[in-house]
């Protein structure tokens, strides 16, 4: 590494750590813990109807009032939202945003790994999602294995340390996966590398049953040990801790939510049957492209379905996916949410929800629920977020038009009553940032080399915009 190159890298990293966060609206944000009054908006409460010409009062990060002519303290910040709409923050029940690693694909059961250990709080896509009114993400492990890693639910408190992202009190969860990705159907056979079990949907079932059989035995060993301790027996040796099986024991005890990636109807039924055999519940079927074929079975099990609203045809198991999936499942009593599984779509889940109306005539309120209250229920956080009600967290966005319209965009996004995106602020800062950027580019070590090309920016692991098959992409990187 030449000294010149070294200096250039140094400056670039300064650029990335200083300028980029500034560009994305992190700097000089005042803490907003006081009162904010959003005045005269159309408030889409989601659970209590649409309130025209109404106010939302935010106090200490919570919704303190919803209604007409609310009074705020003299120091309150008042936002005139005449002609605008207020929607709860959108909750994306399937995201891989801010993950520096997505798949631990080496084993069929990886319940010992946690996505929480790979979070990047400076991911610019987080700010872009906020600018689309999204405030909560279910960060899931990829779909490489029947039993994947542990999830994390975050609020997009962009620019803050990771600890501030973690959704307080959100029940823990785990990713399961079925079908082509798990079988590695679309993965290349690498020479000299033995294929990982399972290779078929038969094997997938066996992996699941085996894991839960082991988890039951493990739990029994601990139960027996605790009983013996309770009886006052001496010189006991406790069972060895198994961090792969511990999460599965939590599932058996109903303490960890299962989010299961699936496509075909038969595999959905298979998982329900495994869950019944071992006495646990699936909280959500993720993607569930053929959920509409077995909607009543999903409803009977009590599971939700978190889906792409209209993605289809990119692989064989996605060929029977239809955009009417949301409508059929909702009518059958399934709690349906519409997710992004993509940093790109996470910016416009509002119009994704509108598709549930186009295809199958879901009502406006039900469509809005599919990106707010329903995913909140699926994540067990519906008492905190997902609707505009007094006492709930002030996670919401002001839209300049009806959020189900393509012509609308977000003006301001709040998380816990703090502004994390504001379009006017964003626009106001652009000129200043442009100057700063130009200045940095003129710095001697950043000037283009003789060959006429700009220096290479540091490589960032970039996920494809359309992440319908996250496992494949990972595998192709040797």
């Amino acid at each position, binding site marked *: 590494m030449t000294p010149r190159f070294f200096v250039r890298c140094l400056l670039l990293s300064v650029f990335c750590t200083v300028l980029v966060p500034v560009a994305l609206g992190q700097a000089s944000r005042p803490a907003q813990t006081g009162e904010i009054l959003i005045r005269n908006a159309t408030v889409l409460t989601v659970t209590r109807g649409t309130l025209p010409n109404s106010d939302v009062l935010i106090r200490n990060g919570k919704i303190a009032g919803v209604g007409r002519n609310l009074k705020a303290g003299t120091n309150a910040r008042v936002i005139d939202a005449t002609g605008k709409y207020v929607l709860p923050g959108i909750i994306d029940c399937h995201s891989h945003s801010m993950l520096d690693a997505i798949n631990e694909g080496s084993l069929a059961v990886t319940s010992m790994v946690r996505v929480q250990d790979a979070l990047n709080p400076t991911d610019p896509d987080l700010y872009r999602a906020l600018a689309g009114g999204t405030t909560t993400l279910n960060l899931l492990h990829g779909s490489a294995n029947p039993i994947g890693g542990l999830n994390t639910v975050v609020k997009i408190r962009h620019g803050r340390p990771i600890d501030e992202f973690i959704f307080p009190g959100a029940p823990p969860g785990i990713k399961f996966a079925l079908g082509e990705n798990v079988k590695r159907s679309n993965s290349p056979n690498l020479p000299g590398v033995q294929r990982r079990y399972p290779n078929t949907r038969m094997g997938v079932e066996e992996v699941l049953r085996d894991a839960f059989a082991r988890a039951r035995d493990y739990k029994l060993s601990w139960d027996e040990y605790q009983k013996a301790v309770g009886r006052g027996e001496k010189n006991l040796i406790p069972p060895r801790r198994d961090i792969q099986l511990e999460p599965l024991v939590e599932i058996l005890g109903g303490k960890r939510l299962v989010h299961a990636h699936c496509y075909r109807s038969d595999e959905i039924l298979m998982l329900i049957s495994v869950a019944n055999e071992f006495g646990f519940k699936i909280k959500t079927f993720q993607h569930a492209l053929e959920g509409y074929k077995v909607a009543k079975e999903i409803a009977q099990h009590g599971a939700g379905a978190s889906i792409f609203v209209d993605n289809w045809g990119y692989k064989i198991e996605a060929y029977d996916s*239809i955009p009417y999936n949301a409508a059929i499942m909702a009518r059958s009593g399934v709690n349906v949410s519409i997710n992004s599984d993509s940093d790109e779509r996470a910016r416009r889940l509002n*119009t994704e929800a*509108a598709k549930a109306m186009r295809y199958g005539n879901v009502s406006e309120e039900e469509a809005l629920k599919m990106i707010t209250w329903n995913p909140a229920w699926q994540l067990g956080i519906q008492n905190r977020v997902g609707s505009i009600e007094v006492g709930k967290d002030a996670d919401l966005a002001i839209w300049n038009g009806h959020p189900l319209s393509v012509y609308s965009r977000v003006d301001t996004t709040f998380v816990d009553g703090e502004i994390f995106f504001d379009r006017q602020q964003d626009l106001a800062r652009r000129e200043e940032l442009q100057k700063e950027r130009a200045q940095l580019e003129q710095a001697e070590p950043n000037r283009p080399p003789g060959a006429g090309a700009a220096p290479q920016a540091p490589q960032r692991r970039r996920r494809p915009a359309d992440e319908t098959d996250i496992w494949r992409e990972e595998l192709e990187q040797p």
Partner: protein
Amino acid sequence: MTYTNKPETQKLAKDFEVQQRKRWRSSALVLLVFMVAPAGAQQIGYPTTQQGVLPPQGTYAIRNARIVTVSGPVIENGTIVIREGKIAAVGQTVNIPASAQQIDAKGLSVYPGMIDASTSMGLVEVGQGAPGTVDLSEVGDLNPNAKAITAVHPHSAHIATTRVDGVTNTVTLPLGGLISGQAALINLVGTTPQEMAVVPHAALVINLPRIGAGGGGFGPPPQQIVNLPQVLSGIQRQVDRIKEMFRDAEAYGRAHEAYAKDPKLPRPDRNLVLESLVPYARGERPVILRAEREAEIRSALRFAEDLKLKPIILGGNDAAKVVSLLKEKDVPVILTGTFSLPMREDDHYDILYATAAKLYEGGVRFCISSDDRGANVRNLPQYAGMAAAHGLPPAEALKAVTLYPAQIMNVGDRLGSIEVGKMANLVVTDGDLLEVRTQVRRLFIDGRDIPLTSRHTDLYDAFKNRR
């Protein structure tokens, strides 16, 4: 469309549906529709009657409609007469032929069908796991003789699922290599590729090599660029190969012309590859050049000027930075990045949402495309809607998916607006064409009454009442 009048619109639409049902009850076709409805699962394609057989061209009069002509003012309570595949009359008072089947469109709107200028519609059915259904790119770098129209699968399920949402035409592009092949402009209906073709050889597709993206622009970028000068000279060699081929084609064309005039000259052998390139080398047909970054767009423009081509820029993420040059050279852009994530970490969050508005303000000719291979082309109106949410006037957003793509593909006299003499590609809706919630109520392509069914409506009908 405003949301307050929605119930009214829905009521009107419902009335309309009832009328349609009455009309259809007498039709034998409708029986067929229900007979094939529970079509089998997971078969490739959509081989049912509606897709397989081209409906006849009829005489129709759509009455009492709000006619959004796109090229002129909106006509309230207007009538459109369709005859022999064409728009025969448009206006508030027009003569309706006695033979015309009348359609009452009270409360409904009529738009020209949308056109997506960059897709691979019909060239791929299932991208992963079914390579037999993929005909996207030929082997090798220089394939001007690979013609999309040859491989467009008329019975692809993507075709009906796309048109029922109001997209009546696509440009179907081959991909890959340096010269990918020739794109076709098609109607999304037909039993054979020839029946679908509007312009079978509409444009040549070229991927100028790019740093970090190889020649094709697909696949993961290389992890490290080892030696920049080496890479640049490699790129130059590839560009030189393309240029050489164009010059060969020009010479080939001249030689054959000369021989045709004077058979005493030595007879030049026939070369199918060069032969297919001749009209593009002569600037008679457009050449689509994929270019995203500013430097790529500028070098594409230089390339086209050097060879005196008729260029269209495809992609254009950075086109807003090249506005004055694009305007000066009068080169149009097929803008595909509206829904892409910004290319650079410090780009403004809305940079690509707002690119269309910047091109409009700068006077650059452009259209908006999904650049989807097929399955998601039906989302085209949402791309235009997002551009409208970020500064593009709504009327321009509508043009960007109707008239502008038609003009850019040199069929502005045949498609893209509601004018007498144009092909009758029309969409009857219950609201704003670009709004997601809007329903398509009636569809005409080439003056043919197209059933609003697809593989997706079939599966919906088959499963919606399962209890």
